């Protein structure tokens, strides 16, 4: 499913709850949580916070978020070998990531981009979109997602 299918209205609808979840999990002030905040660089999230955030979002929105879902979806049609080599994302992989994470400013994509640094790209909007995609996947055909 392409991100272009996700509207700003949909993102705005889930953002308040996602922001509250982020603030609770990272223990930061909710005013700091903006749509374009980088979880690591702006909010100071650590790896345990990502685990916390995912479980909190699953419980709150009643969706399943498999581990590594963002990277798996970002990889798209590329095989693992096409996406990265020895821990460094290939040019094709970076292009795929840029398209998938189109909410992330271009300057945040470092070169070379290490796979381990991909979470550094994630913003609050990235997680809003993840929730929306999982809501759509869980919703019966034609039905609205649950809030």
């Amino acid at each position: 499913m392409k991100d272009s299918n996700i509207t700003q209205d949909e993102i705005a609808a889930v953002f308040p709850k996602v922001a509250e979840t982020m603030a609770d999990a990272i223990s930061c002030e909710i005013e700091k949580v903006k749509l374009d905040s980088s979880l690591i660089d702006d909010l100071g999230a650590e790896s345990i916070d990502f685990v916390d955030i995912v479980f909190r979002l699953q419980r709150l929105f009643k969706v399943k978020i498999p581990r590594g879902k963002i990277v798996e979806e970002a990889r798209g049609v590329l095989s693992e070998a096409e996406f990265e080599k020895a821990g460094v994302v290939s040019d094709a992989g970076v292009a795929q990531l840029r398209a998938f994470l189109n909410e992330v400013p271009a300057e945040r994509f470092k070169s070379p981009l290490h796979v381990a640094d991909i979470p550094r790209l994630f913003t609050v909007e990235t997680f809003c979109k993840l929730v929306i995609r999982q809501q759509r996947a869980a919703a019966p055909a034609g039905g609205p997602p649950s809030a």
Partner: protein
Amino acid sequence: MDSHFRAFSFVDRITRLGPGDSIRGQYTIPPTLDAFPASLVAEAVGQLAAWAAMATVRCSHRPVAGIAGTIELLSAVHPGQVLDLAAELESVDTETVGYGGSAHADGIPVIRLLDCVGPMLPVEDFDDPQSVRDRLPFLRTVGAAPGGFDGLPALALDPCGGERDRVARARLHVPAAAPFFADHFPRRPVFPGTLLMHASLQAAALLATPATSANGGAWMPRTVSDVKLRTFISPGETLSLEARRIGHSDSSLAIAVESRIKQRLVGSAEILFCPALNL
């Protein structure tokens, strides 16, 4: 005597494993102990959930540390009592486990754990995988002989200032050597997160004095929430704990506790106290 599966193991027997993701077990608190703190009851429930999680992934990975959404402290336990342990897995794979659980003693609820999450890490980094694999059927059949746990070494806090009734600071010197490190874990000793919770309760208690209660009575910890262990704590580390009052009324006292090694935040929790019942 070998401390493995003794010095910090709190499941004697698994009485039911599945169907689905539920597990039941028992632990007899050694009658020779002076006390058995709530943090160790929480550890027992967590260890039972860990066995269920490991069984699901064929003991390739195990939960280590993590997060507890809410821990309800319902009643105290006494040496000699048998804990009936229960846990339900919300989800488990080789990355994370989500679970909740409880413990009862003599039919009375003792503790309840809600919304817990543990990162799953390779067993081989912490323990001998074959020993762990062999232990699971042993606990399901023969069971461990009670009495393996000899108690904790002194983990007293060293108070070091603060602001009256509002902030308390203390240091905790994690022992460089202690029997429980041989069990938690044989290949990589790690200070248990539940013992950090134990220390956090002690730090919070520095603020929960009768002087701050409406009738001059004692406060009792009722819930510990948003417990998060951010990194492994090694033997010999010195932790700086800061307890800060974040809410106060006649009926409750809320305290946030943060633990740091140098400047780095390694653990946090919020503790809610209520007036002790005068029975």
